[in-house]
């Protein structure tokens, strides 16, 4: 199929279906699940090898977590420092309180340049603010230049992973998209041939379009520098050839000092792509006369981040360096892929970041999109305790539900409220066990197993049996034994 199922995919958290529902198309699509599993297995194997080789991996993680925490706790100071140093070097720093303002700032800058086209380095932040459709509506076409992003842009698909956004697309799908949109009838599906086609397609754009938009992996407060980490070289093209460069960066991207990159870069490459170092890392500071863009703007984006910052238990979410190791490790993501999360940030980090950016008004199903297995926390290079944040967000979602009338019609809510009363007193617990044994006994077959239950229980018995409650539970056995002994 040519378009990558765009009708089924909605990455706007305000309107995307809840996770259990959004996951279904993927669960029912063996090809997609196979593509995702293959991609994940490759990155995981490479990562595992390199982590085993890096004898100071845990020490790097500890330092990275400490650096990022210090940066966040002193974000105001470091952002002002970054602004001062970037400006002194010839850059212009803008501040956008929310997505709408960021879009307006960028549009105004592009209009200043009379730009009808712009080349982009992949930046999930620009997807977060839905920049491309906004610019399109304003008559400005944004050309994605990352291979994965081109595949998605030309194929009208949506990203499903933050490092390898098109991992759900296989080579024959790519071939079909390129052949059609680039007019290359005889294109083969060999990845080398496909890559050559992309190289050729973009070359002229790099050389002629004078305005570029990028994200930032890191902002360095000490120097006012920006760092971009990439593999393909399209980043270097975009940040070197044009006349005007606009960098969009979340306020949380700042590092205190240049030297902190010695920690972050070692962790990022291994975590993201399973390499000791990614092919190209670029660092630039404001404007360098005669070298690269002579007009440079940084748009600092809040869009809910300062709100996350204000909550001590949740602040750690902002330590994220967008490596995607968490989603590669996640057994849920492995089955559902990224689109199920209804956000440009999928996987474990998406499950905590997205609802928080939405001030918990949307994406309320995402904190529950996890079995709390902890694999994400284990691999996170900056030690974000994602399970801890998931549980905290679940408490917030539940507190919201407590204020609604509909809670009285939610069997899970009622069941848990009742369970709490039951667990409060041993006699209530024991009584409930007896009633449970009688009640479930009605559903228990002769083989001692339950095959079908109503309501919430039915969600279990959809695919699993449940052994019937034993005649004598443990505490009854213990009490009987005590009696016998006496």
């Amino acid at each position, binding site marked *: 199929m040519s378009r990558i199922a765009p009708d089924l995919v909605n990455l706007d958290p305000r309107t995307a279906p809840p*996770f*259990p529902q959004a*996951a*279904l198309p993927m*669960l029912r699509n063996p090809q997609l699940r196979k593509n995702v599993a293959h991609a994940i297995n490759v990155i995981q194997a490479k990562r595992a090898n390199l982590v085993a080789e890096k004898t100071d991996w845990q020490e790097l993680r500890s330092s990275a977590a400490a650096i990022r925490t210090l940066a966040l706790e002193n974000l105001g100071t470091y952002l002002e420092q970054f602004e001062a140093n970037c400006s002194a070097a010839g850059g212009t720093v803008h501040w956008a309180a929310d997505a709408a303002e960021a879009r307006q700032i960028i549009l105004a800058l592009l209009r200043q340049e009379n730009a009808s086209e712009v080349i982009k380095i992949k930046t999930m932040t620009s997807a977060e603010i839905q920049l491309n459709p906004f610019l399109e509506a304003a008559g400005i076409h944004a050309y994605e230049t990352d291979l994965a992003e081109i595949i998605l842009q030309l194929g009208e698909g949506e990203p499903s992973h933050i490092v390898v956004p098109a991992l759900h697309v296989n080579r024959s799908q790519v071939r079909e998209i390129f052949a059609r949109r680039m007019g290359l009838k005889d294109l083969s599906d060999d990845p080398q041939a496909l890559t050559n086609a992309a190289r050729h397609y973009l070359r002229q754009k790099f050389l002629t379009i004078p305005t570029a938009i990028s994200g930032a992996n890191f902002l360095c407060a000490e120097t006012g520098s920006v760092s971009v980490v990439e593999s393909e070289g399209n980043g270097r093209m975009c940040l070197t050839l044009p006349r005007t460069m606009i960098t969009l960066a979340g306020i949380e991207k700042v590092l205190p000092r240049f030297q902190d990159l010695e920690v972050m870069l070692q962790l990022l490459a291994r975590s993201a792509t399973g390499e000791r170092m990614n092919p190209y890392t670029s660092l630039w500071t404001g404007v360098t006369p005669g070298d690269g863009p002579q007009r440079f703007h940084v748009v600092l984006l809040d869009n809910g981040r300062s709100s996350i910052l204000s909550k001590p238990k949740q602040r750690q979410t902002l330590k994220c360096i967008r490596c995607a190791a968490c989603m590669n490790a996640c*057994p*849920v993501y*492995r*089955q*559902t892929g990224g689109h199920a999360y209804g956000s440009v940030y999928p996987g474990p980090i998406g499950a905590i970041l997205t609802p928080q950016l939405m001030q918990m008004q949307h994406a309320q199903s995402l904190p*529950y*999109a*996890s*079995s*709390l*297995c*902890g*694999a994400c*926390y*284990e691999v996170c290079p900056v030690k974000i305790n994602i399970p801890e944040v998931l*549980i905290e967000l*679940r*408490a917030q*979602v*539940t*507190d919201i539900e407590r204020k609604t009338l509909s809670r009285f019609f939610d069997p*899970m809510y009622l069941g*848990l*409220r009742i*369970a*709490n009363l*039951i*667990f*409060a*007193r*041993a006699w209530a*617990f024991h009584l409930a*066990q007896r009633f*449970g044994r009688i009640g479930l006994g009605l559903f228990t077959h002769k083989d001692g*197993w339950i*095959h079908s239950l109503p309501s*919430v*229980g039915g*969600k*279990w018995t*959809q*695919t*699993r*049996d*449940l*052994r019937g*409650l*034993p005649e004598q*539970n*443990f*505490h*009854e*056995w*213990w*009490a009987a034994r005590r009696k016998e002994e006496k």
Partner: protein
Amino acid sequence: MRTSLFITCYNDTLYPETGRAVVRLLERLGVDLDFHPKQTCCGQMHANTGFHGEAFSQAKRFIRLYQDAETVVVPSSSCVAMIRDQYPGLVAELGNEELRQQFEALVPRVYELSEFLIDRLGVEDVGAYFPHRVTYHASCHGVRALHLGNRPWQLMAKVRGLDLVPLNNLDRCCGFGGTFSVKNAEVSSAMLAVKLQDVIATGAEYCTALDNSCLMHLGGAMHREYVGMKTIHLAQILASTEDCPAEATL
């Protein structure tokens, strides 16, 4: 050596044979075991589902119940993880200094079963006999929250007759995740199906683990799909002898 058994709400109700096995095992090892009749639940289900307020009273109850216990042994990694990882936050929030002190004094005395055997009793060979082909699933909380490491293997290595078959992706989540199994039933089932493929591929007679929650999940699918494999809590394997072979779960 004295210990108090916290059987856990679900083991009490659904898997009393695991409790009986823990009793048989520890008494055989000369442990003086008691059972507090007023125990109910550690609060994990509520805490993990977002019913944070409800978890407070359950945590308080647990702490108060066991403040005089020499040690507490729990045949469930996830419950011990709840106590170690989440109780500190709950206790801090409650702001009761006395409770906090009771908790700080109690928590080092709470052991998951394999920790109790290896660390507290200092035994690896518990005198067990279980002549069957078995594969071991490493439950998530045991691996990542409790860092049990090699303990299960140290114990299994000394079980006579045991034919241990390694499980591929042994520490990949089975998909249970407590209420996740019903709130995200389809995703949970997909994870379970993938996990089951690895388990079946071992050709073992039994799948064992330190958490009956995972075994309930795996066993439920095995039974539904006529897989012909049984689940059994590791306590039951360790309690099994020639004279008194283990009761299987399935």
